[in-house]
């Protein structure tokens, strides 16, 4: 990318554009961090069911990638991320969040410990600025190879079979959150058993000039396994079923917030398991410790809601008809056969078993109605299949 010319390009094609644009029947796209990504290729339902029943392929190129190396790489990540990165072995991936000094979440992402001392931090939002700030006093080299490193999410029960057929021997033995490297037509192909769908699935990473060849090989191998490109709408459904949160939807990145009180801490997003106070210092530690002592303002909740009307944007009430929070993500889950939602509730509401009400507005043939549907706080993901965890990966 010529840095001085960047503003002349309204939106960038991804490394797979020559392939995805041909398949994108609906021509519906949006801008994700200056890249064009498909909302839907043909039909959301078909794409959703491809991911749950066969294999869906999502163009992950715009995912922001940061490569971190240098003698202080581990120390740097340990000071920036709330969890203990020293436990992350080479060839492993871990989910993580990072906060500002006030203990408010800036973004979540995945940190890859590739070769010893070489890390890749992936996030939805651009983070180079925060990484630079966080690197003051550390001997690290940080680059952002987002444009140079193409990536695809290959997700669904037949994904392992597809990759095996593509020639990735032994891929079935890759454990969840593991990384493996393969030769792909003379180039290095990195595969991680990770994803945003809560199912068996992989993410594949290759240098951008080889992206199209990878796409072609993948779709050729997947032909008999129901492979299908999927857009962000279908991905959104799978991530809600998996119970994953998303920046800008379920929480506001702290560095984007203007109004006080709009941001959330890891505790307030149900991510207390990612906060390791045994580390003597990480950004946000002092504030989070204080929050732990004084109590949080909000609770994150997964809701099981009566009926079948999606509780999109619903207010949540307690039995005294007081508003206790709002839904941040909601859908009818075809797989869980449930009306599910993620919500941010004022403390103390949101404990598993809490019985609340969702105020749902819905339309039938242009007529609006309102229903107060019972909403129960539940624990765990709405969809959590065994095949996600089993190694060797099952063959479907």
């Amino acid at each position, binding site marked *: 990318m010529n840095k001085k010319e960047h503003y002349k390009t309204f939106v960038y094609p991804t490394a797979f554009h020559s392939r995805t644009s041909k398949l994108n029947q609906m021509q519906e796209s949006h801008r994700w961090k200056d890249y064009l990504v498909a909302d839907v290729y043909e039909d959301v339902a078909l794409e959703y069911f491809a991911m749950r029943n066969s294999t869906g392929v999502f163009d992950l190129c715009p995912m922001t990638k940061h490569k971190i190396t240098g003698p202080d790489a581990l120390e740097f990540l340990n*000071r920036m991320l709330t969890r203990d990165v020293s436990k992350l072995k080479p060839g492993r991936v871990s989910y993580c969040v990072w906060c*500002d*000094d006030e203990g408010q979440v800036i973004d979540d992402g995945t940190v890859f410990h590739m070769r010893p001392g070489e890390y890749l931090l992936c996030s939805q939002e651009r983070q180079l600025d925060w990484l630079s*700030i966080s690197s*003051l006093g*550390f001997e690290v080299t940080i680059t952002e190879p987002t444009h140079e490193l193409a990536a695809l999410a290959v997700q669904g029960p037949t994904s392992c079979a597809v990759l095996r057929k593509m020639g990735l021997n032994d891929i079935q033995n890759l454990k969840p959150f593991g990384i493996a490297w393969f030769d792909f037509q003379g180039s290095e192909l990195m595969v991680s058993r990770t994803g945003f769908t809560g199912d068996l699935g992989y993410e594949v990473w290759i240098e951008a000039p080889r992206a199209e060849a990878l796409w072609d090989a993948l779709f050729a191998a997947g032909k008999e396994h129901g492979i299908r490109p999927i857009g962000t709408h279908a991905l959104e459904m799978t991530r809600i079923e998996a119970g994953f949160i998303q920046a800008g939807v379920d929480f506001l990145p702290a560095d984007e917030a203007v109004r006080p009180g709009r941001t959330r801490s890891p505790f307030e997003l149900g991510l207390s398991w990612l906060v390791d106070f045994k580390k003597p210092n990480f950004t946000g530690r002092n504030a989070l410790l204080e929050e732990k002592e004084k109590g949080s303002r909000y609770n994150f909740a997964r809701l099981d809601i009566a009926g079948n009307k999606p509780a999109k944007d619903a207010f949540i009430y307690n039995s005294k008809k007081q508003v206790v929070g709002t839904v941040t993500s909601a859908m009818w889950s075809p797989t869980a056969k449930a009306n599910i939602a993620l919500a941010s509730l004022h403390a103390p509401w949101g404990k598993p078993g809490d019985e609340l009400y969702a105020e749902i507005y819905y339309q039938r043939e242009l007529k609006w109605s309102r229903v107060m549907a019972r909403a129960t706080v539940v624990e765990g993901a709405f969809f959590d299949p065994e095949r996600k965890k089993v190694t060797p990966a099952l063959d479907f």
Partner: protein
Amino acid sequence: MTDNSVIIVGGGHNGLVCAAYLAKAGRKVTVLEAADQVGGAAVTREFAPGYQVSACAHLLFMLDKDISSGLGLKKHGLKLAAADMETVSLSDTGEHLFLSGPEARGGDLSADDAAKLKQFNARMNKFADVLRKVYKGRPPRLVGEWQELKGLAKLGLAVRGMGREDMREFLRIAGINIYDVLQEQFDSEMLKGAVAWDAVLGGHLGPRSNNSILNYLHKLTGDVNGKRGAMASVRGGMGGVTAALAKAAEAAGAEIRTSTVVSRIIVENGTVTGVELENGEKLSASKVVSNADPRTTFMDLVGLKHLEAGVALQVRNIRSRGSVAKLHLALDSLPRFTGLDEKALGGRLLISPSVVELEQAFDFSKYGEISESPMMEITLPTVHDDSLAPGGKHVLSALVQYAPYNLKQGWESGRGELLKRCMAVLERYAPGIGATVLHSEVLSPADIEREFRIAGGHWHHGEFALDQFMMTRPMHGSAQYATPLPGLFLCGAGAHPGGGVMGAAGRNAANEIIARGDAA
């Protein structure tokens, strides 16, 4: 038994004041000074064989009288060689302006300006009184418990208590520049140049920069023996102040170790537990108080990796680029300034003939250059004090502006260039002075950084400006002397209330530590 040991890193005047108060309160205090004598930037040392000079600060006018009486500095040897020095704003034609607080005469001063100066001085002193009040203790926080709000309310009341007209004027000018205010009041170019000097001395700012009023008021908070705006010369140089402070601290039970260089402040499990010396020796203490400037403290001694990222960023962004150089001359005889009586040489001599020339001198430093015609504050301490030079010989000490820390040509060659320019200026006012120079020394901000271990060579350990003032000095979260690192405190000029040999930061830090009891 609880551990009440305190290590103070740096034996500058604030470190020593802090040590004395803590020792008086029963703490086991050890002061570690890197140089071979205490004093920091308030120090006297030889710059040429037989010639002694105040190597950094050269006049005393802000020392808090509660501190000097509270610690018995007179008893411990503090002696003023001159207590009420007149300011002489030099003119190259010999029409000098003489200034002493509200009184002025000579130069291009009109009767009208002389009358206005009295009003101006009274009003400015009234404004400075607001600062004097808040300098007595730790600054309030903008958020927090009701005690904090009480502090803020007190500040508000002090401003309101000035009366409607003065309050309006205070709020109008507090954030603006001295140039505009002086233009409104006076016609005398010499008077404006001289007053503006006090508003820009020590900082990276010119008379047209905002914060120059704030700097001016800061200077006016000082007094000598109760006389506002007076300037004093210390017998034996500024080292006389810190020698007395050291004696006071030792008398109270503090231990002082000189030639002891701290290489790092030890952080264990997120808490400061002691220091490591350059020779590898480790000393532990329940609290470490840093008299070093905040950037040196956090970046060099602690390490930014021990702070949270936002705090580290604040540290990096502290503005502390020095713009003052120091000129020391050993003279064969008393210099002769055109039209100036020999008696007047005991005063403070300013070369800041007009506010425009002062601003022009600043322009160069904005672009990393030495002023073509540097401005100066000159003292001849040997006029009052025969202990500093061999009989009949003299010492000239001058603060020179502007000499930017980030000099484009670099200070290796810049030092000689600055000396040349200074001598050219001096020659204009005191023809023939060059021929009497026996020895010379120039300390650039880079030299000041090295010799006094101040990041950026900034006298005040950080620019004195509204964004680095009170609850944001040196930065929010560390403004009440305690830092985000448990066990680590600040007591230097980088903390509230700031620079100048006043000792208030050291005393306030000690009071804060005492008030906190054994809590980190």
